[in-house]
């Protein structure tokens, strides 16, 4: 269990850094981060299911300028870890458990936004330190201060991961016996609802004229094709 949580934290750290601080190769996207975490924990399909549900949710929230979108990376990673580890402990599995993990993780993911904002605020003090180092002619110190910013972003990612894991660890085992049966009546429909809600948000916010017309045409065309074939 400790090993799984640590492994999850490691993935959370690497993917969290890819989100803003380094590379931006999009390994931080839920569709990548969740299956990657789950692959390390031995159940990649769990991660894939969670990735599908979370990927489109906040895709419309663009990291433009100083805007900080909710931390879907940590939501996806922590949900995968919770679903796999708690599933083993409680001897539970299935879509219902994944959904419960997501229901707990999605609101807690809001903390990621606060932590990320705090990290960026904290990095403001680096400006003065770099300026002072440059005035002294100490370039190595100035470069080091820039890299120190990585620590803030790492702590922000790990903090969000820890909050979701701790929250889920306390809440999920209490709720599970009560919601397992009721969730089973509608779990597959809820699983479908997550990506569809994400798509509607993209549709509502994407800056394309006639987006709804295009979407409806593509939907009907594809649907009719599948129906006929």
């Amino acid at each position: 269990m400790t090993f799984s949580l640590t492994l999850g934290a490691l993935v959370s750290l690497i993917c969290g850094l890819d989100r803003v601080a380094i590379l931006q190769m999009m390994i931080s996207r839920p569709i990548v981060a969740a299956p990657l975490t789950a692959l390390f924990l031995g159940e990649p399909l769990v991660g894939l299911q969670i990735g599908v549900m979370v990927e489109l949710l906040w895709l419309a929230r663009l990291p433009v300028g100083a805007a900080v979108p909710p931390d879907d990376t940590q939501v996806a990673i922590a949900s995968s870890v919770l679903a796999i580890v708690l599933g083993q402990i409680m001897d539970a599995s299935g879509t219902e458990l994944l959904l419960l993990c997501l229901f707990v993780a999605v609101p807690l993911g809001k903390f990621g936004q606060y932590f990320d904002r705090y990290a960026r605020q904290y990095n403001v003090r680096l400006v003065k330190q770099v300026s002072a180092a440059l005035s002294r002619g100490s370039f190595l110190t100035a470069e080091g201060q820039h890299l120190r910013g990585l620590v803030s972003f790492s702590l922000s990612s790990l903090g969000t991961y820890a909050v979701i894991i701790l929250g889920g660890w306390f809440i999920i085992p209490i709720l599970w016996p009560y919601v397992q049966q009721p969730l089973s009546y509608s779990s597959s429909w809820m699983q479908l609802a997550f990506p569809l809600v994400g798509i509607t948000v993209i549709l509502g916010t994407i800056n394309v004229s006639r987006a709804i017309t295009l979407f409806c045409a593509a939907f009907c065309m594809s649907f009719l094709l599948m129906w006929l074939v």
Partner: protein
Amino acid sequence: MVISWRTRLHIWFRLLLLQASWNFETLQGIGFFYALLPGLKKLYGKEDLPEVSLKYIGYFNTHVYFAPLVAGAVLRLEEERVSGTVVPEVEIDDFKEMVAAPYAAIGDAFFWGGLRPLAAGVALFFAVKGILWAPLIFILLYNIVPTWIRTVFFSRGYYQGLKSVEFIQRHKLPDLAIHTKEAAVVVLGGLSAFMVFAQLTQHQLPSWLGLLTLIPMVMLGLVARKGFSTLLLVIITVSTIFLLGLFWADVIQLITF
């Protein structure tokens, strides 16, 4: 004085860390200085370097994939300033300020608003089918263009300097951003239909019911346009499905009883 390809490669790699110290005061300012430092060290002596460097740590913000283009052009302008062979038409600070915001707007629209949903939509087709390669497909599909832009545009920026702006204008990226967004909307429409159809088939329900999905989807889209948060929409949708599920289970129980 010419900056060697080794130094330029060094700068290119450093640009991958552009946002390591992102902050609310100077945004990417320190990162831009950090990336350019190997080049500045080649151009300036120990006496001038601190003063030049201090100019670079100020406010700077552009799209992360377009930063290499700006960095390349700035390097060229610095070279011209130091050699004194060409009188730069604009000050380097002014140039940075002039191009950073438009490049950021183009990049945000193209990459975040268009390419990312498009690549995600395509990868999700595979993911929904349970194909474990879906994440890799997403990574490959998405990263081709940014890697090309980061590499080729950096080189263009360096070789063309101020004229790199014309290079961007020639590529008509804002138009491309709109077309990519339209393609993303079409792919997401197909993806929605695919998921709904699969769900109905799994539950052995009549397929035509799927067309009704468009009604709540368009309604939610309009609600999202009004500024409602995704979290709220998720809570409303999931609660409704949960309650309907409970209600339906009770109905079935009554019928069978």
